[in-house]
């Protein structure tokens, strides 16, 4: 049984449909990345799963507990780090931790012990007795995450944990989350940053306008839209058509000439494993002179663009770029797959 199972979650706010039937599943000790632009429905999903919001339809089961029917039991098993660092600025780091521990009914002594453990573990020992008001954004975020771990939750929810952090603090928080994840905490992580999902998540669901439009591992998603590419730059543009013929057996789509110079052949491939040596060998045997062979890995940015027709972190102007025929065809294919799955 998965640690978290959500089926057909629907949520309306007045006229707007924030969620239009979201399904998701998190296996125990895995990290699910929920990726989507602002307003896609990520936070609404988290709020439903953490009992803060009741869905209009659908159900959510956490550790075998229906979160709508038995919110209080579910709450004992979750840790929530919301979009804002929810720390009390007037208290010290230790006091903040103890406070949450007591509200989890751990008992004063246990709450104190856990607070000390976590403050050590999260590198805040020196600041532990200081009032949070003087903490940096990164320190607040670390304390915030520590607070959600105080009662050893079986599922941890991180809603955009690095939004608003400077690059250095973001790196810190990533390392922290990576460690937690290695330790086997089942985690749901929402993010607008493709890099973040790529780095931290075992599985990703892409949400746009209240619907899951794709799911899979980062690699699977990249593959779904044609994946990585090998670029061959030729000495003589006249060889181009011969090269396209030659590499046809390696590609997963149509190779094509790219750029104005007429000497760059771009070939989409499903996997880059051993691809460059193979291509070089074939070209060598055919005595074709090559200036350079390079690879271009597709990023989740590309995936997002191909799936939604608009760039990530920029959810508002979705209609802007439907021009690319190949991309929208791919979008459709993936959408169908998502619905079938």
């Amino acid at each position, binding site marked *: 049984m998965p640690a978290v199972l959500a089926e057909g979650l629907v949520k309306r706010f007045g006229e707007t449909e924030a969620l239009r039937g979201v399904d998701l599943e998190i296996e125990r000790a895995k990290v699910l990345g929920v990726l989507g632009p602002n307003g896609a429905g990520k936070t609404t999903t988290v*709020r439903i799963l*953490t009992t803060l919001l009741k869905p209009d339809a659908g159900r959510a089961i956490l550790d075998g507990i229906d979160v709508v029917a038995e919110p209080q039991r579910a*709450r004992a098993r979750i840790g*929530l780090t919301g979009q804002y660092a929810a720390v*009390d600025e007037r*208290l010290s780091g230790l006091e903040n931790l103890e*406070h949450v521990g007591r509200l989890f009914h751990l008992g004063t002594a246990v709450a104190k012990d856990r607070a000390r*453990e976590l403050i050590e*573990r999260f590198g805040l020992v020196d600041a532990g007795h200081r009032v949070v008001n003087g903490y940096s954004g990164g320190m607040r975020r670390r304390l915030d995450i520590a607070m959600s771990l105080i009662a050893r939750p079986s599922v941890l929810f991180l809603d955009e944990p690095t939004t608003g952090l400077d690059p250095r603090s973001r790196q810190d928080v990533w390392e922290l989350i990576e460690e937690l994840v290695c330790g*086997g905490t089942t985690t749901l992580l929402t993010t607008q940053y493709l890099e973040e999902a790529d780095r931290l998540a075992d599985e990703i669901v892409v949400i746009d306008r209240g619907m899951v439009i794709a799911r899979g591992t980062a690699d699977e998603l990249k593959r779904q839209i044609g994946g990585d590419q090998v670029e061959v730059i030729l000495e003589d543009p006249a060889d181009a058509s011969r090269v396209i013929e030659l590499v046809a057996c390696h590609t997963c789509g149509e190779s094509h000439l790219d750029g104005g110079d007429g000497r760059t052949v771009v070939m989409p491939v499903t996997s880059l494993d051993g691809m460059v040596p193979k291509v070089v060998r074939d070209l060598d045997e055919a005595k074709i002179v090559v200036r350079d062979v390079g690879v271009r890995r597709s990023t989740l940015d590309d995936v997002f663009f191909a799936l939604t027709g608009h760039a990530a972190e920029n959810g508002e102007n979705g209609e802007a770029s439907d021009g690319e025929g190949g991309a929208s065809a791919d979008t459709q294919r993936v959408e169908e797959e998502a619905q079938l799955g």
Partner: protein
Amino acid sequence: MTTTVDQLVAPAERDETPSGPVWLLRDSWTEALRHLRALPRNPELLMFATIQPVMFVLLFVYVFGGAIEVPGYSDYKQFLLPGIFAQTVLFNSSFTGVGVAEDLSKGIIDRLRSLPMYQSAVLIGRTMSDIVRNVITFTVMLLVAFAVGFRIEGTIGEAILATWLLFFFSYAFSWIQAWMGLSVGSVEAANSAGFMWMFPLTFVSSAFVDPSTMPEWLQPIARNNPFTIVTNATRALYNGRPPGSDLWVAIAWAVGITVVFALLAARKFASSAAK
């Protein structure tokens, strides 16, 4: 330093979440403690909260005091100061709204709502801790009042009853403020929204002058203002006079406001979200 992440996050064995009135009290106390711990760390906040009422006492006694005459009281101070007491404790209820709005906007209420605690403890703890703050400012103000010549002429019992009534009334109003703080969502809005209506409420009353000196259309409003009733009851008790029906009507107002607005605030709380 030898703890590993494994140990930190492995799901613990868990009993069913404890419940019952004892836990409601404990959770409320835990929440109240969160605010009480912060009190001595911001002495300047408390200082400003005290300066204003002290200034009011001095201004009204020395600036307006000579010009204002009230029937039934030879000394204006004996009439005025219970009114200022009532106004001050009522004004202090606005701290509740500001505090609640701050917790809400910082996401603290979201976190608290995701914990297996008594949800109502958040607002109970908040309103309770605000009484403590109120008691501190009230004490300072009372000392200043004694210094300018105010005397308690009733019995100790009457004085205690009068003081209790003031705090009960202020407590009722802090539920109005809690509801407003949850509704407006930002600290700034809570601050001005919480204060604005309390000016007409406390001035169109018997706190500073006898309502019969007001224009005729305003008199019924001033006379039936619950704040007038509380002020009259308190004033009578401090001066050792019989409060009459004012005492019971004032208590009824306080009970009614508490019940209605605690329910409204609880409903708002259950659907609140950081904005």
